């Protein structure tokens, strides 16, 4: 089979990858795209962070371990993580104490990663005063900036902002990542769009490679109709196209030769619409993309925002027809709602567990252990509990060894501002800071006893 024929037959990105075993990293290198860590040799251990958001609080009684100390049996909501128990660290008693403008939900999501107040604004929530965007940068963007400033930790994107079913409106309830004061970062909640961002350029070249042949055929055909002078221009054009075709073939050939460095571009199912009922599939697609982007070292920081503050998914796949937020306002005495909320939160935990397992099963490229050993997933929530809107005891479930914290246990800090945890995370990532967010909540320094 000649090279051209092979190229012609290689029609889809999946097929392309299967046939040529092109690794995303290798392909990117060969195709001249910025990729991989751009710097020289790394001195530090590779560390990654993923912040996972789920909305509307939890049911604390079925969430928190009864006592601090080594994990024994997980409660219902955390059950999906049971197999990974030794990688899990639960942090109770960490509270979002930020006051100021905005209702509980707004401050719940808007101050969660920023640790600072919201600007006065014109968005009026259910109660309290109206508010605007956050006054400060969020920790994911802050750490991304730190990592990108250092050639040793710099990557193609630095950070990636994933979403799942985030409503198509920009307001305080739909944003948790901020590039700076008044600068919310919109998550990408369409997996195809994310795919485009990650692999679009090389994929476009694949498509180009496979359609060029058809196009040049037509050039040859029409040439016959033209005068000698006019033909010259088309010949020059075809020469150019053929030259580009040849280059593409060479790229693919070279990519084929570096098969050892295999991490495939994920195979997304086609034509999945952003609809409520597709939420499990969409979450899976996004998580696969996240794992692969880490595998290709496109970024070391990610946020993964499932729905939004006041999120209203209807988890019909669990037999739940009501919206999540509506249910979360029901009193604990509503047994049906209570049970459904446990199921909903368990489903979120399953997603976290899926991500953690995929990382645990994948060996760290060019390093020791698994990818999970180099990654910490921080699963968190805007509220401690839905029907009270409390921001005390914000759920913080850490999975993995990225930060180097001692896992396999439950801690209870008994009412500390969450700014101190944000500071601990910065410190563990090698970028300690005297404060994060509002300095008034940082005077006691980072939390101790984590490592």
């Amino acid at each position, binding site marked *: 089979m000649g090279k051209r024929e092979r190229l012609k037959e290689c029609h*889809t990105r999946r097929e392309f990858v299967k046939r040529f075993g092109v690794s995303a990293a290798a392909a990117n290198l060969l195709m001249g795209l910025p990729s991989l860590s751009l710097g020289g040799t790394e001195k530090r251990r590779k560390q990654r962070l993923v912040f996972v958001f789920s909305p509307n609080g939890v049911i604390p009684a079925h969430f928190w371990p009864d006592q601090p100390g080594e994990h024994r049996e997980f409660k219902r909501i955390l059950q999906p993580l049971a197999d990974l128990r030794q990688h899990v660290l639960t942090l109770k008693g960490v509270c979002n104490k930020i006051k100021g403008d905005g209702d509980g939900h707004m401050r719940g999501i808007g101050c969660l990663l920023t640790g600072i107040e919201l600007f006065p604004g*014109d968005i*009026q929530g259910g109660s309290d005063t109206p508010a*605007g965007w956050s006054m400060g940068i969020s920790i994911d963007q802050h750490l991304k900036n730190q990592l990108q400033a250092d050639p040793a930790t710099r990557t193609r994107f630095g950070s990636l902002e994933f979403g799942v079913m985030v409503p198509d409106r*920009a307001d305080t309830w739909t944003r948790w990542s901020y590039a700076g004061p008044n600068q919310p970062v919109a998550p990408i909640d369409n997996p195809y769009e994310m795919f485009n961002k990650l692999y679009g350029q090389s994929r476009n070249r694949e*498509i180009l490679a496979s359609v060029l042949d*058809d196009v040049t055929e037509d050039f040859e055909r029409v040439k016959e109709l033209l005068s000698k002078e*006019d033909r010259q221009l088309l010949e020059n054009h075809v020469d*150019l*196209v053929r030259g580009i075709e040849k280059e593409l073939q060479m790229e693919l050939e070279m990519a084929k030769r570096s098969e050892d460095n295999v991490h495939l571009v994920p195979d997304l199912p086609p034509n999945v619409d952003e609809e409520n009922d597709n939420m499990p599939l969409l979450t899976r697609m996004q998580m696969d993309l996240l794992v692969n982007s880490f595998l290709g070292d496109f970024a070391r920081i990610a946020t993964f925002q499932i729905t939004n503050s006041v999120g209203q998914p209807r988890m019909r796949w669990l037999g739940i027809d009501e919206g999540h937020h509506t249910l979360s306002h029901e009193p604990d005495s509503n047994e049906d709602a209570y049970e459904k909320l446990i199921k909903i939160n368990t489903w979120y935990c399953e997603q976290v567990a899926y991500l953690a397992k995929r990382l645990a099963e994948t060996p760290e490229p060019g390093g020791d252990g698994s990818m999970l050993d180099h990654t910490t997933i921080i699963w968190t929530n805007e509220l401690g509990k839905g029907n009270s809107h409390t921001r005390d005891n914000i759920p913080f479930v850490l999975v993995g060894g990225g930060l180097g914290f001692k896992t396999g246990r439950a801690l209870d800090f008994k009412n500390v501002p969450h700014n101190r945890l944000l500071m601990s995370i910065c410190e563990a990532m090698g970028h300690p800071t005297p404060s994060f967010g509002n300095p008034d909540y940082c005077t006691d320094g980072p939390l101790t006893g984590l490592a």
Partner: protein
Amino acid sequence: MNGKNSAQNPSGNRGWPSWRACGIGCSPCGECLPRPIILTARDYQYGDALRVALGMGMALLLSLFGVPSEPTRAEEDSIAALRQAISQLELTPIQRHGAEIYANLCADCHGDVGQGVEGAFEAPLVGDESIGQLADRIHRTMPEGSPEECEGEDAQAVAEYIHYAFYSEAAQLRLRPPKALLTHLTTTQLRQSLADLFAMDSWMPTVSGEQGLKAEYYNGERRKKEELKAERVDPAIDFDWGRDPPVEGIDPDEFSILWSGGLVVPESGEYEIVVHSTCSFMFYLGGGGREFINNHVQSGDKTEFRRKIYLLAGSVYPLRIEFRQRKRKTEIPPARIQLAWAPPDGVERPISAENLVPHGAPATFSLQTPLPPDDRSYGYERGIGVSRQWEEATTAAAIEFAEAIIDEKWPEYQRRHRDKVKDRQALKEFLEQLLSAAMRRPLDDALRQRYIDNQLAAEPDDAEAIKRVLLAGLKSPFFLYPSLDIDQPPAARTANQLALVLLDSLPTDKRLRQAIESEKLGTDEEVRRIARTLLNDYRVRAKTRAMLHGWLNLDHLSDLSKDPEQFPGFDQPLVADLRMSLLRLLDAIVWSESSDYRKFFTLDRSLTTPRIAAYYGDHWLPAEPWKTGFETQWTVSSPKHRGLLTHPFLLGGLAYHDSTSPIHRGVFLTRYLLGRVIRPPAEAFSPLSPDLHPDLTTRERVELQTSPEFCQSCHSKINALGFTLENFDAIGRYRETERGKPIDPRGSYITRTGERVEFSGAADLAKFLAESDDAVRAFVTRAFQHFVKQPPAAFGADTVDRLVERFRASGFKISELIVEIAVEATRPMRQANQEIASTTARQ
């Protein structure tokens, strides 16, 4: 003649130095190189410059025409052909006598058929001087060094011979009849075609004369029907209500305003849109749900919002702004909003009524991919070169377009054709519709198989499949090379050509499609009728404006900085206003009822702005009070206004930073307005500094510097025209004295037919230009080249004559000239029609 030989030619190239600094101290911009008006042998002299500019790919192409350096087989063939053609001419006795003298005294330096000789006079002996002028010059200066060898009747005979045999434009047309070349889409054509392909199932907005935006004022933030308190047209969005209600009956604590309409873009380029707002707003631009600036949340003291976007002049961008003052428990800020932009000239200003329309427009597509500039070696943009950069840009453009289709058009189509969504029937039909429009032909089975079925079979994901199909289709020769439609029926070809010539686009327009179907495109009259209906299309307006830019060479005048001590306050905002004033003046003349070309030189009013009026005063004051929301206003009538000829943007642009430049003005008038050829100066000169000659006026200084005989052969013409505008200083302000001496604005011009005309100042010159056959021909030629992007002679040697004649007959109506250009440009396609018709009739 002031021929140069290669020893003195620093570039070492044959022919004229490529980008020689002009003697007048202007930058080495190539401006002083002759600009060919039609494709004649003169064009070939660009070979060297082109070779450098376009790289080897182009050089290959050029070699076909016989570029003078590195004699090629083709060149030798071409000269042999010249000899053959000239030897067959029937000469008069005088011409024969001239031919003999030429062979004896001239051919050594100029070549036996005027082709030029390496190491001697290299440039081909072609030009536009009359026989009389040539004879005079030969008499005085030729042969170089011993002019006494050829004088009087001998000089006359030589002039008659070379003029007839090869020197004149007529001779060149005869010797090398220009042909229409195969060209690919220009960048503008590519952008416009994609925009129209995107909107092919929508209506096309036309110029209505309405200005401003539709505004609906609601009490409360939810825009309930019953709370609509006022509905009106706001000329612009520029309001500061403080805490007052914006209109009566509205609670200033909680209200909403909806502005809608279209954004009209005067020139293609990158615009930065700027909104200043103290309240929440959503800004949609380009299409229904296309969010441009999202300030749904009013937060902190962030009140300035900016975003850049490439906008295309022929499009109207639907615009919608939802402005909200929300009730809140805390203190409510004062309400204020302004919609502004920084156009490509970079000067930020509010968007005025002139650029807004109160009626909507269909969603459109504006390509953001940067495209490499088109070849301009023939003096107008056309697609005659391919480069790697261009090839890659067309790929990027196709992908960007495909993504817009995937995001907006395909979902929309699916909603309308739910019944067919299964087994991809709808997708096939959707793509076939797009591709047959893009490729200017119905898809036959083979094309459908290759471009649609095969691609769909290869890709199960619809979005990916669309990308494949469009990438193939938009890179196919049928899309990129419009004239490859030779196998199509005459009505379709005529519509294709009409769309390309008038709209820079594809015939997606309903009016054109209907005409194709009813085959109403056969006769001149039918083409005229449909071309006239297209005149109020924004795309025709944009193309005409670009033509006028080129005619006046305005792109070269963009940087108008002046000596701040002499001209305090002459700043960039003022320059931007002056530019706008000139562009709108041109627009106003072209699209007025009379559309009279002569008004370019005779109109006694202009368009002014508050800045211009404050700076220039006097005849730049508005005739009526300023109108809120509008940028420009007509001035009072004044004899000091002579259309564009006295416009400060032009006169200031054709001047130094501290003094006028009669030479720049003279070159401009000669080359651009009168369409004459000027040879570049023999050597580079620096202009004499005004400081060295403090008692001389500019006129006296220029006369002094250009007094040597070898300067005078050109400068006698250039200066004589430039001096007539000396009443206007370096910023185009009227003056009567310079350095205490009265201005002497006398001048003269010798026409192509050898007639001498005298002027005493701008008014005389304006009167002459308005009717001058030279000027009219230059304008008609420029218009044809711009619209058709081919040399007029390729459509028949007398194309320009015919157009000039009809232009005159219409009372110099520019809009009719555009229509007639469309008639001429479509004739070859329609003649094919008639041939077919007559063949059928015979059968």
